[in-house]
């Protein structure tokens, strides 16, 4: 991509030399503006996650930190990690297909990426549900009736643990959800809106009201409104640059998990 953008820069330079100045401005970073914009967003977002991870580490340093994650949780989190890593590979293949101009394979690889991302969200949701059922609750939230296991004790003795665990992983899960929807919009454009609407309505009615995701599913409604506004106000056929920029966001989500997984899960492993 750098080659292509540098070529663009040299073309612009030639045009200035030939007196057709003012039409384009030379790219400062040798990249098109959408890509630079996404990189700047990711740099700022990395500070958001950096602050959360630092806060987590700060709490962990001065607290007798519990190690409640058993074999099941670690296996589950490892499969989630493999899903995200595999989704990054399919995303790269999607970018290649887009650069070749192969629309069919671009869509296929983007859908494969969305599949892995959705698998991550579902596995994470199941993990959350299991932990909450076993008594892991945020400080101030009502205790789960009948839950007297290790996680209930952890919530009572070390409220920093559920607070940082849910805070970090919820922020990351929200990013993954937005990423899947972003890819859906790029891959399917307006066709994705009814699909998202159906998933939202189905999720709202099928997830029991005592499950946290009965309320969390409203994030899909907000994304549906935002995606609709974008798609109807500025309908366009997304090109290879758009796919690459979407890929940058997706890889960033993967990147953040590479720190959350060892810090939150592996450092709290119960043997």
């Amino acid at each position, binding site marked *: 991509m750098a080659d292509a953008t540098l070529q663009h820069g040299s073309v612009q330079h030639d045009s200035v030399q030939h007196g057709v100045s003012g039409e384009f401005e030379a790219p400062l*970073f*040798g990249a098109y503006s959408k890509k630079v914009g996404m990189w700047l967003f990711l740099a700022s977002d990395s500070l958001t996650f*950096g602050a959360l991870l630092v806060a987590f580490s700060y709490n962990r340093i001065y607290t007798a930190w519990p190690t409640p994650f058993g074999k099941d949780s670690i296996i589950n989190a490892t499969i989630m990690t493999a899903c995200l890593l595999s989704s990054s590979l399919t995303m790269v293949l999607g970018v290649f297909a887009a650069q070749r101009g192969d629309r069919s394979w671009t869509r296929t690889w983007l859908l494969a990426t969305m599949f892995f991302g959705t698998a991550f969200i579902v596995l994470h949701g199941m993990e959350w549900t299991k932990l909450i059922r076993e008594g892991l609750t945020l400080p101030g939230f009502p205790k789960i009736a009948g839950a007297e296991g290790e996680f209930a004790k952890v919530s009572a003795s070390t409220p920093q643990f559920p607070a940082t665990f849910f805070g970090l992983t919820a922020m990351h899960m929200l990013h993954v959800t937005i990423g899947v929807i972003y890819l859906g919009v790029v891959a399917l454009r307006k066709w994705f809106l009814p699909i998202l609407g159906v998933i939202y309505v189905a999720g709202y009615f099928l997830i029991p009201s005592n499950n946290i995701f009965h309320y969390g599913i409203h994030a899909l409604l907000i994304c549906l409104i935002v995606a609709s506004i974008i798609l109807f106000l500025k309908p366009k056929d997304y090109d290879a640059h758009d796919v690459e920029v979407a890929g*940058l966001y997706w890889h960033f989500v993967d990147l953040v998990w*590479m720190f959350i997984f060892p810090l939150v899960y*592996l*450092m709290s492993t119960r043997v």
Partner: protein
Amino acid sequence: MTHDAATHDDSKGQYFWVWGALLVLTAIEVVLAYRQVFQPVRMLEVLLLLSVIKSALIIGYFMHLKFETALMRWLLVISVTGCFIIMYFFFFPDAGRVLRLGVQ
């Protein structure tokens, strides 16, 4: 763009290697943590080192930063790293104080 796509197609295999390396590093992390090979502080250092290697692979190859201009590479890396260092100086001296003196 055509030249660009051809360049990437020629080297597509390297992305499969990177993906394999990331999976292997993840497996190493899990084995180290589950078998409690090191003491907690040393374990934290090792896991963070492996995470930094994994993130470098993701940023460099999957996010293509390796193939961007030197100006963009250095500006992004230095600015984000600088912000993290500032965060470190804000938080951890106080965490060390709490560790030595207790919560007061």
